[in-house]
């Protein structure tokens, strides 16, 4: 009886998504799961690289697949402008456009407009902005966003939300944005044409006000979307505040749904967020920083443009399993050295492609290792080892990480 009950309680399905909880860390709130989407299963926790304009910066979809990626992002905003909805419809969606047979997640398109760019004005109908070409006033609504994402055909689509930077001091505006986001979710659900093949995720808003976040969680969860995102954490807020919001939301979210923290990608942020119970992350940083010659490694960031790497014939990262770094006699290894990347950094696009491959691999592998640790119930040891490598003298751990991890039972300084 108990086994049956346990089985029943470790997986949940909606029309186009199955979430199966595989293991829970016995100390922290970290969880390992499998999320099955229309284009196949993905293991959580996971990092999703961002292929903004239906291309991951010079990597072929085949090379992206080779990093182990099975779910990547496209930006609705960019695809809406190029190639545009008509082309997407004619081609048959973004999977066909880019020759990617795995999963795609798209954002709503509102984020760039509102939060980053401050070029738009938000009203109840939608986001108002001026056409860049001729200054004509234009309106982007939840219905437009969903219609575009339906044309894109992404496996996970995001609601249009009213995003404010979390550091905004305007409580009244923050509440308005939170409540409007709930109303816009209803409009998105109503406008969504393909609930059987595309999963609409809601986005929790509410800034840094935990009560407002909790209220938003309650409203959003009641709408029973297949997955849930925590939004509005743009990086401007203090890391302690970020952790508090992620921790508070995760505690209120249903166990058998994927939890997506939007727009984060620093390795420390990923590891701490996993400890706080989050499952999915995305960020342009790993691929962006690659183009400036930076390699992400277990020992921190290396800028391979620096002269000290000119004659460094070691791999980008010792022990890395990516096609650039894996030992030269192993199948599929290229034998790329730091010296070779240095030689071509900022001179040939190939150097950027190689570092992109390495960095994406690093991020995916970090989450793979976290997942294995959760399943083996040695996640706290994994976290300590991870921070130990980044801060080798055992001191200088960031206090936000120490505090957040302490809150879930890991003492970094022990």
């Amino acid at each position, binding site marked *: 009886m108990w086994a049956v009950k346990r089985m029943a309680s470790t997986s949940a399905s909606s029309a186009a998504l199955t979430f199966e909880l595989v293991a829970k860390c016995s100390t922290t709130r970290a969880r390992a799961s499998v999320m099955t989407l229309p284009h196949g299963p993905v293991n959580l926790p996971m990092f999703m690289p961002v292929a903004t304009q239906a*291309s991951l910066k010079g990597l072929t979809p085949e090379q992206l697949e080779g990093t182990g990626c099975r779910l990547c992002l496209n930006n609705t905003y960019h695809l809406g402008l190029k*190639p545009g909805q008509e082309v997407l419809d004619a081609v048959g969606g973004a999977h066909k456009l880019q020759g990617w047979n795995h999963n795609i997640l798209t954002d709503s398109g509102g984020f760039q407009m509102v939060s980053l*760019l401050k070029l738009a004005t938000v009203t109840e109908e939608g986001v108002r902005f*001026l056409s860049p*070409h001729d200054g004509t006033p234009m309106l982007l609504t939840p219905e437009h966003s969903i219609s575009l994402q339906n044309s894109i055909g992404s496996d996970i689509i995001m609601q249009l939300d009213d995003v404010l930077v979390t550091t905004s001091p305007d409580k009244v505006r923050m509440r308005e944005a939170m409540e409007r986001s709930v109303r816009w979710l209803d409009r998105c659900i109503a406008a969504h044409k393909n609930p059987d093949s595309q999963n609409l995720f809601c986005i929790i808003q509410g800034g840094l006000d935990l009560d407002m976040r909790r209220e938003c969680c309650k409203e959003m969860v009641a709408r029973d979307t297949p997955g849930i995102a925590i939004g509005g954490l743009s990086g401007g807020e203090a890391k302690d505040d970020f952790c508090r919001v992620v921790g508070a939301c995760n505690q209120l979210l249903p166990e058998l749904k994927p939890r997506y923290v939007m727009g984060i990608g620093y390795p420390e942020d990923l590891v701490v967020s996993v400890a706080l119970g989050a499952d999915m992350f995305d960020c342009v940083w790993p691929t962006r920083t690659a183009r400036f010659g930076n390699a992400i490694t277990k020992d921190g960031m290396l800028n391979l443009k620096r002269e000290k790497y000119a004659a460094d014939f070691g791999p980008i990262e010792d022990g890395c399993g990516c096609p650039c770094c894996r030992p030269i*006699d192993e199948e599929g290894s290229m034998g790329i050295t730091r010296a070779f990347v240095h030689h071509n950094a900022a001179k040939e696009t190939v150097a950027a492609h190689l570092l992109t491959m390495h960095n994406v691999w690093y991020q995916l592998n970090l989450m793979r290792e976290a997942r294995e640790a959760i399943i083996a119930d040695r996640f706290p040891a994994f976290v300590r080892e991870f921070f130990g490598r980044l801060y080798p003298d055992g001191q200088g751990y960031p206090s936000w990480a120490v505090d957040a991890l302490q809150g879930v039972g890991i003492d970094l300084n022990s």
Partner: protein
Amino acid sequence: MTDEAETNPAEAMTFEVLRSALIDGSAARLGRLALAGRKTIDTPNFFALTSRGVVPHITPDNVDKHLDTGGVYMALEDFIERPQQHQKRQPPIYDTPTTKRHPRPLHSFTATPPSVMTILGARRIPAVASPMGNTNTSVSVFTSQGFQVLTTKEYHQAVATLQPDIAIPLADLSHHGPVTPTSKRALRMAERTDEWLGSYLADLPSLSKTATYAPIPPVPFPIQWEYLSRLSEDLLPLKKIAGLALYDPDILPDLLTAHQNLTPLPRLSLSAPPTPHHILRHIALGTDIFTLPFLNTVSDSGLALTFSLTPPPPTSPSSSQILPLATDLSTPQNATSLTPLSKNCTCYACTAHHAAYIHHLLSAREMLAWTLLQMHNHAVLSQFFADIRASLLSNTFTEKAALFARSYEPEFPAGMGERPRARGYQYKSAGGDGKRNRPAWEKFEGDGDKKEVGVEPGTRSEGLETPLVPDEVDGTAAALDHMGFAEIEHGAEQK
């Protein structure tokens, strides 16, 4: 001549002539270049040109997987720059350790797949003209840090250290255009090249891992007859040279008439034939292997090659339409085209992707556009050479070449697609890369300030950075509305 094979004597690298001089007036021939551990190269064929040790836009894994190319040409000038803050440092490439998989330093430094041969020359093809000129013991080369002197000694040392599969000794070249055939300069080019080959062989008496392809400067036969006699009468019998590197294949008829014993050597052309028409002519002159700068240029222009040795049958019997050599994928009719880049192409770009994707990537200035175009364009060339070899085998080369000449336009179309960043210093700024002013986004309820948002300066035109706000929107608000991105607010007033 007959079908009987002529082989070079026992050397690490072998070149076999499988069929030669089949038809009067054509010196075209079939051959096979082989080196243990590397892909065998059937000739006529071509070597890919690299920039700083990479085939532009293609990572080494994809060179291995998705290019047929059996050889890559590398220029030493791409590796020996002296950065201003580190004037004294030895170029790092000379310290490259070798591995079991990459037993040669040049292969190892550039992560060139072991199946691919490397060919080392001093200068890129085509080379940037130097204002300084050469001296009796040095050539002027162009690095990422500017012009630099490369002594003959350093070059010879580089060949010994880097162990390319094939090395081309220094030639005294003038990169400022053709030299008057009978001028003093032409004579000196021949004399210096002769001298430098002598000092190369003296400096490298026991070169065992590298095949030497003697450079033949682009001056008329009578001007360099002495040098060519030395190759034929002294150096060939001593097995000091394993091939010829020709800067102008038009010398071949005279050369082969005068020195028949040079016939078994493979002939590598370092001239830059601008079109496939020129390739066919050079094959008829007897060229075995090409380097083709137009390939990288065509890909960077957004063009996909569409030619094949046997043109497709005309759509109607009376049609005498001249076919284009390439198609511009940036043109709007490709926006929704799910066809391969050229009919029947089986390259990675054409099997995994389609014209609409490349069109999108070009329009979005995504680097992958150029990667996929490179794969396709190299594949079309590989197929072109494979078809040429088949025609030589079936004795149809001459008529196929004539049909090709009648069927295709003489030149490539001009590609309108945006180029990637002119990869820096190799391209002297000719004002062709001018930045267009694009419409900038303006703040709604704003102060009219136009601004660029979310882009690192200088990275956008290079395809390295995607602006958070796409910076170019095709057309008007009506177009945006049409694209489904948003709708025009009729009646709304801009404040």
